[in-house]
Structures are given as C-alpha cells and as structure tokens.
C-alpha cells in the first residue's frame, strides 16, 4: 500500500497554492464585492495549462490525472471559490462531455480552444422544473430540415454568459422518453442568455438563465448517440462530483487556515484565544475531519485514474466534504467572533461561498439517494 502522492502531484499543489496566494488572494474580496468575473485570472490559469488539466495533450489539454486536477481545485478553493468553480465547471461540466462523447470532428473543433482556457464551456442540465429530478427535462430539440431546433429554458448555468463563453451543452428531449445532448454555440439566433443572477456566494462566478426559442443548430451538434443523453449526464455528474468534493476539502482547509491564524492573534481574558481548550478542540476536530475528507476525495480520484468504478466513492466524497465544509466554515467564523461577520474578513466570504457545495451537482439528499442505490437499497 502506498498513500504517497507523486512528485508531480506535490509540485502541482505547491504551484497552484503559490498562484492562488499571490494572484487570486489579493483580489478575491474585490471580485466578490463587485461580482466581477475573473477574466485576468482565467487567462493566467490558461497559460499555466490549468484550464483543461485532464484533457489529453493531443486536444490541447494538460494530460494530467484526476488526482492532480482534484489537488488544483482544492488549492484554488482554499483561497477563493469563485475562481475554483469557474475552472471546475468549465473543465468537468463544460469540456469533458465533448471529450467523452464527442466525435473526432467535434473534439477537434472545440477542445483546443476550451482546454487552453481561451474560451469557456458550460453544461446546461438544470431547468426550472428539473432540478434534482434532472431527467424531467422539458426542453426539446426537434429534428427539422437537417437541423436541431431547440425550445425551452435552463437555469443556474455556470460559465454560460461570459465574454469568452463559447458554447453550452444542453440536455433536451429528442422524442418521447428520449433525452439527448446538443451543443449550442453562443451567438446562435434564438439562444438568449439572462443578465448574471445575483447570488449569496460564488459571486465572481458567472451564473445565468438560458432560453431557447426556435433556436436552430446544425445536425452535427448532437453529442454522441441520439437518446444517450440521460446516461451521458449521469456519467458527467459522477466525474464532476470529484471536483466539487475537492472544493469541499479546499473550503474547509481555507476556513481552518483562517481560524488557526486568527485564534493565535486574538487575545481575550489576557491570552490568545487559541489557549482555550474549547477553541483548540474545534480546530482539532476540523483538522481531523479535513484529513478524512481529503482521503475520500483522493481515493475517488485515484479509482477513476485506475479505470475502476468510482461513482459510489465520488458521491460519498461529495456528501461528506459538502457537510464538512459547512461545519468548518461555521466553526471558523465562530472562532472569529464579530470580526468574522464583517466583509473585511475573508472568513465571511468563505462562509457565504460554502452553502452551494451542499446543493450543486446533486444536493446532499441526492448524494444519499445515490449512495443508498449503490448499497443495494
């Protein structure tokens, strides 16, 4: 048994940690306050090869394994969730479907631009009437004169409306009881994107409502086989959960880092509050749970890299780290007292950014349903 990360993994961690501290940290509060999309940071991440890590090199990606990718997402989230979800949604939800299910032609057309970070991709699954019940998609794609004509709407879609968004892959009904994935390029007539949605957290990330009215895309934009849309998006969500789980560990670690430092600076009753056992126990519990959560995430990523089944472990990792990040953000803010409630203190942003980790890419409840199914219940 060998639980060591490789030298490459360690160097990815150090590099992304440095980048996050030096390039993201100083602007994170401002981006959040102004709900401003981090274009410059995305460009720099692209130059470093971090916008398409698990995509093979022959399509312009980094050719890295899932463990490296999870480490990078974790380290970004430790400093800022908006940047991390921009990378994670682009990579796992936007780009991966085209790599996994696209024809050679579709891969060559889209992947080089996406994996380099020059353009962004989105994945549009959720609809007003189809959230947890994602199979209840009402959006339709009808075959007419050699085209697909899309009608319907999507909600809460990440990365769909930035200046550099290239396309969204949507799930749509292509017949009775038949779901398929279709690529809709930005700028297609009939594809309308709402103004950015106002959010509690992830404020610098891009979240939109999409509507399609008689929106016509070429026949060749069908992703993979017709009617395979349901199993395709389940597979995408399985992989995506690893990156959201990595965000859970990163957020918990970031909250812990802030609380650990603050507890040593802040003095009450004549001593640093870190000298009080109640504070120590909180930090000890956080450190312990973070280790456990990280082990779950890396194991799920490792299983995926080995080509072994990982869906059960990915759901467990997502569930555990989502709830862990909730406890960690809560305790870390508590350790900050009233200061933690103020915008000037980063913990207030981490606290707001945390909640979505228990909702996006499957709520806690849905993870439990998935796990129960894997348990044979």
């Amino acid at each position: 048994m060998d639980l060591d990360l490789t030298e490459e993994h360690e160097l990815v961690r150090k590099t992304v940690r440095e980048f996050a501290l030096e390039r993201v940290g100083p602007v994170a509060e401002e981006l959040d306050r102004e709900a401003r999309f981090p274009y410059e940071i995305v460009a720099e991440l692209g130059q470093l090869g971090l916008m398409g890590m698990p995509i093979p090199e022959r399509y312009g990606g980094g050719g890295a394994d899932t463990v490296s990718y999870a480490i990078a997402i974790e380290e970004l989230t430790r400093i800022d969730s908006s940047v991390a979800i921009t990378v994670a949604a682009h990579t796992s939800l936007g780009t991966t479907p085209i790599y996994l299910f696209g024809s050679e032609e579709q891969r060559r057309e889209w992947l080089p631009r996406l994996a380099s970070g020059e353009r962004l991709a989105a994945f549009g699954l959720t609809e007003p009437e189809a959230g947890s019940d994602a199979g209840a998609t009402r959006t339709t794609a009808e075959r007419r004169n050699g085209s697909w004509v899309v009608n319907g709407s999507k909600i809460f879609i990440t990365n769909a409306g930035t200046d550099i968004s290239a396309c969204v892959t949507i799930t749509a009904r292509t017949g009775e009881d038949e779901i398929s994935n279709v690529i809709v390029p930005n700028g297609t007539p009939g594809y309308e994107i709402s103004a950015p949605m106002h959010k509690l957290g992830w404020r610098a990330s891009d979240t939109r409502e999409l509507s399609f009215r008689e929106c016509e895309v070429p026949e060749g934009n069908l992703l993979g086989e017709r009617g395979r849309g349901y199993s395709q998006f389940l597979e995408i969500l399985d992989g995506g959960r690893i990156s959201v789980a990595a965000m859970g560990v990163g957020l918990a670690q970031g909250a812990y880092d802030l609380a650990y430092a603050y507890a040593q600076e802040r003095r009450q009753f004549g001593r640093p509050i870190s000298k009080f056992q109640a504070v120590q126990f909180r930090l000890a519990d956080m450190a312990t749970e973070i280790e456990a959560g990280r082990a779950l995430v890396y194991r799920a990523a490792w299983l995926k890299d080995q080509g072994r089944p990982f869906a059960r472990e990915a759901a467990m990792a997502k569930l555990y780290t989502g709830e862990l990040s909730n406890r960690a953000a809560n305790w870390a803010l508590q350790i900050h007292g009233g200061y933690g409630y103020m915008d000037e203190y980063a913990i207030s942003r981490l606290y707001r950014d945390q909640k979505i980790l228990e909702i996006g890419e499957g709520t806690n409840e849905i993870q439990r349903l998935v796990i129960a199914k894997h348990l044979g219940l």
Partner: protein
Amino acid sequence: MRIAVCVKQVPEGAAKRIDPATRRLDRAGEGALNAYDANAVEEALRLKESAGEGEVVLLTMGPARAADAIRKALAMGADRAILVTDDAAAGSDLLATSIALARALEREQPDLVLFGQQAADSDGAVLWGAVADRLRRPLISQVAELTLADGVVTGKRQSEFGYDVIRAPLPAVVAVSDSINEPRYPSLKGIMGAKKKPQETLTLADLGVESDRAGEAGSRTEVLALSEPPSRGESRRIDGDGAAPEAIIAFLAEKRLV
C-alpha cells in the same frame, strides 16, 4: 551558449530556527527552492529564450531531498540538473561549498554562471564571490538588468546611490538581485515533463574534492555564540491626529536625519 544556475533548497516558510546544540540552522521540515534563486532561473530562461538557443543547467549541493528544489526549477524550464550530494559534504560552510560548486562548474564550462542574491535561510550573499574567485572569472553582483551580446555580459547593478553599469567578458559569474524579474510559475506541462529531464547525481569523489576540503573538516567558519538581537531601545508612537506629519518631521530633524 550554456548557462549554469546555482540553486539551493531552503526550509519552507519564513520562520528560522537555530538548533542551540549544533549552532546550525534547523533544516528539518519541508524544503523549497530558495526564492532568490527563482530569479536567477527565470533570468537564465529569458536569456535562452531571447537568444533562441542554449542550455540552462542547474547545479545544487545538498542532501538527496534537495532534488525537490531542482524539480521546481526544471518545471520552470531548465534543461537538466546536477545534484552534488555526499554525506561527507554535510555541514559545509561557504568556503567548502564554493570548492565543490567550482569543481562542478569547471566540468561544465558554462559561458555564464548565475546565482540568486542570497539564500533565504543563511542570508550569506557571498557564495557567488567565492565561486567566481575560485574559477578566476569576473563577477557582477546585485544585477537588476542583464544583457548578453558579442561575448560580453552587461549588468546594471543596484548601488546605494543609483546604478553602476558593468561589463565583463564571458565566461563570467553574475549574481542577480530579486528586482531583476518576476519568476514564472511552472506550467502543468513543465511539471509533467520535469521528471523526464536529465538529472545527474555526483559525489565529492566524482568532483575530485578531497575529504578534508569538504563538510565540517573543510569548513573554516566557527560559530562561537548565539544571542538574541538587541532590543530596539525606546520607541515613540505618533498617532495620526492631524499633527502627525509635523511630529514626524520634527522627530527626524531631531535625529539629524533630514
């Protein structure tokens, strides 16, 4: 053109601890590439890139785990690395280290040897001088701007009162200042490719360094005692109540500083 960059692995983080028993720096814990050396690596890469040809060779002396520091520099883009590692080299001071590095550089015959301005752990800022002397090569230190043309290296050197512009024929030794550039982050591609780059491990015997000229035996530095830095003495606090600028000027004038 061949550029050698001497790099060092230093303990990660700012906190320094001196072991009172050995009177040496405590180097336990995680190590990292000395940040000042990243400036030298960056400059070497830029020189190579602008020349469109050449080779950047890393040289380090240290324990086997110093390879971690080399890996980052290789990931940044250096071509290959030489690690001088030997149990007998442990405890080498600046004199002993300079012998081993100079021997290794003689083998490589680089056109240019680059150093960072100092090591972040010992803060000596003299090793480059010793190495240049042993190699009998010209040295320019504290270089904030570097150009190479027609076999001549030109360095703009920061001094207390402005800049000195110094020219030296190649081969030469240059110690760069940390203001010379902003070191790049290793790219994912660089990280994944670093392991495949040639890395050579040499012992002192390979370099023909006699055992009495290395390690503690070859070191001439003796730490006699350690003490806390003296306290700052009395200090005066001036609050920003509107009259602060006048108070600061009066204070400086009183000390004859303005």
